[in-house]
């Protein structure tokens, strides 16, 4: 565990630095370090970069890298939490309809918001939270005592319904297709520091709550009845963890759009590398997820430079083959 934790931390720091240093415009890494030094108070060292390069590194790349780390970590952690609660390897943070809800919210904001940028994250957040809550209520009331299956099916129903609603709104406002489409494929690009301040508190609290429950999630792995006989309130743990994972996910996608695959590929990779105990999987997912999205974002802004590729395309296109490789080379570990 501690060996992997160290690896994950080193990788995260390396990814963050790479995220600052690599982009369509070449800025030397040494120059960035010197520029950073020159901004430190009481330290007469370093030389400043030219104005444009300074703006590119600190105004464009830095918020983007930080937001990528926050969102990637949160999505991976939520994915791990969902898999733990549902005891299903295919579970991801969008299982209860959060993505569909956020999609409908964002589409409504884009179509009827009259260009008000502040409205979109709020609408996406509300959509995701309401969708997941509705799925939970539907599943919990319909399937008393039947475990997580009804919950899962309720999620499918809610997601399909909201997707239909979103498509309808989009058809009525076909001029907004491009904007909605690029939101759905995810973007860290237009992220300013305002976005970070907006989502960081939600992500911090959600992550803390999920991590605090990691031992109880391990107990849930042996089955509901056994866990109950050990004195664990299964329903309560499930509700708290799902609520935290959903709020965190909703915050993440409210500013970045629907970045897929992170919530599945990262926790599974961690499981294959470091074992299936959630005491290990959850913290490592947080760290590796952060690195993964920061690295994916580097690809998204360099591969067709100076154009941009939506980050959702990169996470799937890079993540899927990588995941296939990990699956083949590692031993399968159950959730």
């Amino acid at each position, binding site marked *: 565990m501690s060996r992997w934790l160290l690896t994950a931390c080193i990788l995260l720091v390396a990814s963050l630095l790479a995220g600052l240093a690599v982009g369509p415009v070449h800025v030397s890494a040494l120059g960035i370090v010197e520029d950073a030094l020159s901004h430190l108070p009481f330290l007469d060292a370093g030389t400043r970069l030219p104005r444009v390069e300074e703006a590119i590194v600190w105004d464009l*790349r830095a918020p983007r890298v930080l937001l990528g780390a926050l969102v990637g970590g949160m999505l991976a952690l939520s994915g791990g939490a969902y898999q733990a609660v549902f005891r299903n390897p295919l579970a*991801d943070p969008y299982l209860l309809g959060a993505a*569909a809800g956020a999609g409908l919210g964002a589409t409504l904001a884009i179509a009827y918001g009259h260009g008000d940028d502040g409205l979109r994250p709020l609408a996406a957040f509300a959509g995701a939270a309401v969708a997941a809550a509705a799925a939970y209520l539907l599943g919990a009331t319909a399937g008393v005592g039947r475990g997580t299956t009804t919950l899962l099916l309720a999620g499918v129903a809610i997601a399909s319904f909201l997707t239909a609603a979103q498509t309808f709104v*989009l058809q009525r406002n076909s001029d907004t297709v*491009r*904007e909605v489409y*690029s939101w759905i494929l995810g973007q860290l690009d237009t992220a300013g520091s305002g976005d970070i301040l907006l989502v960081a508190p939600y992500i911090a609290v959600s992550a803390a709550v999920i991590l605090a429950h990691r031992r109880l999630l391990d107990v849930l792995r042996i089955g509901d009845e056994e866990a109950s006989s050990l004195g664990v309130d299964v329903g309560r743990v499930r509700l708290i963890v799902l609520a935290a994972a959903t709020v965190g996910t909703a915050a993440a996608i409210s500013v970045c759009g629907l970045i*897929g*695959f992170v919530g599945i590929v990262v926790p599974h990779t961690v499981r294959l590398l470091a074992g299936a105990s959630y005491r290990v999987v959850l913290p490592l997912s947080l760290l590796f997820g952060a690195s993964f999205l920061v690295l994916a974002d580097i690809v998204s802004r360099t591969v*067709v430079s100076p154009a941009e590729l939506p980050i959702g395309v990169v996470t799937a296109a890079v993540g899927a083959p990588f995941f296939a490789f990990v699956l083949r080379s590692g031993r399968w570990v159950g959730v």
Partner: protein
Amino acid sequence: MRSIGPRALALLTLAVAIAALAAGCGNGDATSFSISAQTPRRIVSLSPTATEDLFAIGAGDLVVAVDDQSSFPPQAPRTDLSGFQPNVEAIVSHRPDLVVMAGEGTRAAARGLQELGVRVLVQPAARTLSQAYAQIRQLGGITTHSTAAERVVARMRARIARALRAAPLGRGLSFYHELGPDYFSADSNTFIGRIYALFGLANVADAAAGAAGTGYPQLSAEHILAADPDLIVLADAGCCGQSAATVRHRPGWAGVAAVRRGGVVVVDEDVASRWGPRIPLFAEEIASAIRRVEGVRRG
């Protein structure tokens, strides 16, 4: 992932259809269907450009319905018909004898209309001014307004030539044409890109020309800042609330030449996204922006 799969696919299809529409994947020649000798009396236009063309050449009284995007001229009989997702029944309910469409994505509807005996004219997105003029002339020919159509074309040519003469100093200036706050732009192979090229302006989107087959690449903000354009032309004021003030407040943008020297211009995005009779208006806006920026630069 599973839940966004089909939706992403559906949207991708839609977006591709619209990109194809916008870029005019066809050859751009406006000669898609043979036109019988009879003059149309009831025209439905599902193309905002064709709507503007028809009214400009004085054939507006033949137009019985236009699509939901045909926002100009104001007296055009706007309906909720969709040009992107044409519904044959809804179109036929207006009893047209000619339907004008813009896109390749509307092939199925075009076939459906023809089977019902309605004439269909497809005028895809023009890539050059001469294609735009040809479409106006074609509409003139069909509606027996040829003389008026020639007059409209001559007037457009003259106004554009005057705008070009008024801004001879565009050569050497660079510009960024913004289609959305997510930095979608248009390269020089697009209709609007060619208009800028007439002024000799250098397009910062051309560096990414290969990246989007459509001619409308999504640029990275870094690239725009590093390219330091002299002009920023906002075609996203109406849709997305962008303005000189919002551009100035984007992180890192305050230092861009266009922002410092008053080179951020808002254009009418309907005019800038169509290839109709109001294009000279756009050329004149660009000409005056060039003059203003040149004036500031020379002190």
